[in-house]
């Protein structure tokens, strides 16, 4: 204890003195292991963690060593919580005092972070006090300079629009009404793109190759698929593209597993279009690939158009990791296409290069494809074409009348490809099957986060986002 300032006496009352003094009290507080981990994780990883009670299931934030309810020792049971949350309650500090954290007026809010059961207090900034509401969404802003205190979360601010999950974009536009007589050729007169249709956003949730060691957000189980699909729908997707997986992540052709996965998605989100893969995964036979489609009868399924290399190469050195030939003979193109059309499954025709498109148009002469045909331009597969703007335009110009097109790009090609598609009047596919990252290089929290990017792009173009029913109308899909 140190003593500062001068002792003095002051005559404050007729005959009574008050002794004036001042004490400065430095202190040290030991954070403990639980508190230390909480603070250093925020400091070093900009990540907020709580402790979860296995007995009652409560997630405590800030973390505690024992559960308040049942006294269970929870010190080692760490869980991640989000850095966004909801305002549970708040107060506005209006009086001024030296000890206060900010100059008044400022807001202190009780914020319950996503995944936590207890709210924590922090400063809420970036809005006027009169605009704070219970229930509003906020996100943490981490301090630029660490002090290894709770102020390594500098403050919370209203959640940015981009991260506003859980709400489909508002349809402030007229519903799309199809014009059956007009094809793309009529609409693109004079080289102008037809941007009259809202953008159909498809989320490719998993693919056959994206594994949890690359991103924990990739779904394996039916319930994970269902939850992920629901989030994508909430974010603005009209369709999800699905390769079913076993619990260990291996792609499967097992009818029961595929049906369970398909049905779980439909049950969680009945409105959504489910598009199943007829590629399934490496090394599957033609029979394994098509019989599951016929058995489950999704509203849409992928149809592959040429035999090609479909390999895994190091993009920097060109070194081959896995070499694989993806077999799609004319016979398969014909048989798969027929099986789909006969079973009311709309084919999504996968175009890995111009040859695939030409192959399709040759087989199409048999006349079993129903209009409109729906093409997906795929970019960046090791064995297919890389994304180029001229190639995109060439593919589009080679399409038959009335056809629709969407696009997907592997890795870095994902976002540029959907941008170009958007500008040319086409549609967009995103998702962890094609790319596990966001435009800024961060891991995507889920396919839904990439859907948000697509939504933003579509809205920037003034096209709006198609509802699943609008997507059906555009693509000629019959709802099941």
């Amino acid at each position, binding site marked *: 204890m140190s003593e500062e300032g001068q002792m003095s006496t002051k005559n404050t009352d007729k005959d009574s003195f008050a002794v004036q003094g001042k*004490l400065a009290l430095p202190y040290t507080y030991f954070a403990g292991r639980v508190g230390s981990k909480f603070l250093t994780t925020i400091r070093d990883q900009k990540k907020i963690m709580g402790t979860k009670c296995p007995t009652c299931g409560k997630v405590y934030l*800030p973390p505690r060593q024992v559960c308040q309810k049942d006294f269970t020792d929870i010190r080692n049971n760490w869980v991640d919580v989000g850095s966004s949350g909801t305002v549970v309650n708040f107060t506005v500090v209006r009086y001024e005092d030296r000890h206060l954290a900010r100059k008044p007026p400022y807001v202190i809010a009780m914020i319950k972070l996503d995944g936590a059961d207890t709210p924590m207090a922090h400063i809420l900034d970036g809005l006027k006090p009169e605009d704070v509401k219970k229930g509003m969404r906020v996100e943490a802003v981490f301090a630029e300079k660490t002090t290894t205190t709770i102020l390594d979360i500098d403050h919370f601010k209203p959640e940015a629009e981009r991260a506003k999950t859980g709400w489909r974009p508002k349809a402030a536009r007229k519903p799309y009404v199809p014009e059956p007589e007009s094809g793309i050729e009529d609409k693109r007169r004079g080289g102008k793109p037809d941007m009259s249709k809202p953008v159909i956003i498809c989320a490719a949730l998993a693919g056959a190759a994206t594994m949890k060691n690359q991103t924990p957000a990739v779904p394996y189980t039916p319930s994970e698929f269902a939850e992920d699909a629901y989030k994508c729908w909430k974010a603005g997707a009209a369709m999800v593209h699905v390769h079913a997986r076993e619990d260990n992540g291996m792609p499967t052709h097992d009818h029961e597993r595929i049906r369970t996965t398909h049905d779980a998605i439909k049950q969680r989100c009945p409105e959504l279009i489910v598009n199943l893969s007829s590629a399934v995964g490496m090394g599957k036979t033609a029979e394994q690939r098509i019989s599951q489609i016929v058995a489950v009868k999704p509203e849409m399924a992928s149809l592959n158009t040429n035999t090609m290399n479909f390999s895994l190469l190091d993009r920097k050195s060109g070194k081959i990791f896995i070499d694989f030939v993806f077999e799609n003979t004319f016979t398969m193109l014909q048989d798969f296409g027929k099986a789909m059309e006969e079973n009311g499954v709309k084919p999504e025709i996968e175009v890995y290069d111009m040859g695939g498109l030409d192959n399709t148009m040759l087989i199409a002469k048999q006349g079993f494809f129903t209009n409109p045909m729906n093409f997906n331009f795929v970019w960046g597969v090791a064995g297919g074409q890389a994304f180029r703007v001229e190639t995109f335009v060439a593919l589009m110009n080679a399409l038959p009348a009335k056809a629709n097109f969407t696009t997907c790009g592997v890795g870095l090609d994902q976002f540029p490809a959907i941008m170009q598609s958007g500008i040319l009047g086409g549609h967009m596919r995103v998702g962890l099957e094609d790319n596990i990252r966001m435009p800024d290089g961060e891991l995507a929290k889920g396919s839904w986060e990439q859907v948000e990017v697509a939504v933003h792009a579509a809205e920037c173009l003034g096209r709006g986002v198609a509802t699943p029913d609008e997507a059906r109308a555009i693509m000629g899909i019959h709802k099941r």
Partner: protein
Amino acid sequence: MAHGKKNRNVGIIGIGQTRHSSHREDVNQPEMIHEAIAAALKDAGLTMKDVDCIVHGNMELFEMIHQPDLWHTLGTGAGGKDTFRLTTGGTVGITLACASDNLVASGMYDIVMAIGFEKLQEGHTTGGITNMADPLWFRNLQTGALTGSKAYDLIYEFGEERAKKVSMTYRIIMDKHAGLNPNAHRSFGLDFAQADDLIKNSPKLVGDLKLIEMCSQSDGACAVIFACEKRAKELSKKPVWVRDHITVHREEVFNIFGYDDKYPAAQTQRFAAENLYTRNGITKPLEYFDVFEMYDPASWWGVDWFRDFMLLKGDEAVKLVEDHEIMIGGKMPVNPSGGVIASNPIGATALLRMAEAALQVRGDAGAHQIPKPVKHALASGFGGTMWTVLMMLEKELNWQEA
């Protein structure tokens, strides 16, 4: 909650308090305490020799002195006697009463004196309160003892106009009561006609909590003497019996601004009331009790906690306030003394609630005595992070027969 039966009955036989004011520069701490002690001994007709044990309490750190019980020996008369120092935050005053009751009921001592005091002018209240905050999570964000979310909650529940009006009505009632209590620190002579003006013009502290609605910072002390049934009957014409008390503590600082419906922590006010009444067979506290001295740090809390302590629902409590039924002469008089908003020497504050309730039972409250006979009184303490202590007082020893 397991709760044993009392070993023997305990009666309150002496009550003393100082006048409460913002500045008691005419006395130092032991001298101020001595005023309350002398008054309590005089009230009981005892001398210091008759007292077996002293239980001493205040807010730790508020006066910036260590071991105040030793500093105060001259004032308390504890020299050569068994002494305990308790400090439980805002509840400490009534915790002193609970401890004294337990010490006498156990048979350990026949006569125990509780002494609670505070000279808030001498210390730094916000400094003390800030020390309560967990340095890891909350100290950087503390706003002192002020919280505004209860105002927000009531506005959210009852609408802005009604909520603000009922809070101010409660405040004016407390001011009117304080005007009748010569020991009260603050009484402005407010009238109901001023409500709208005060709502508009009183400076806001935190949220919609206004300066006029917040409790004072006071200097003052209170002393109460407890005796076993045998001694109480010998020494006092009208002992007031301590029937039962309950203390509910809870984690944690973060909840101080409010709580989530789904959050596992219960509100301590209602939790304490429900448990205390259940084990005493009381189903309608509003009918049973004749008077209630409530620890009300601000008028917003007063309105809301009155609902909890009386086990009322919806706007029943709001209506009682609006209809002035909490005034002296109303259905359930709350704080005839003026309550905490009028006087708040913190370490004494919760003991004053019990002392004032006991004076009402005795019929000795003077100008603020309620007009109907008081058989059953309730007193509450509040502190820490929403801790609650509730104590029931009785005029007769007849409840055990039932």
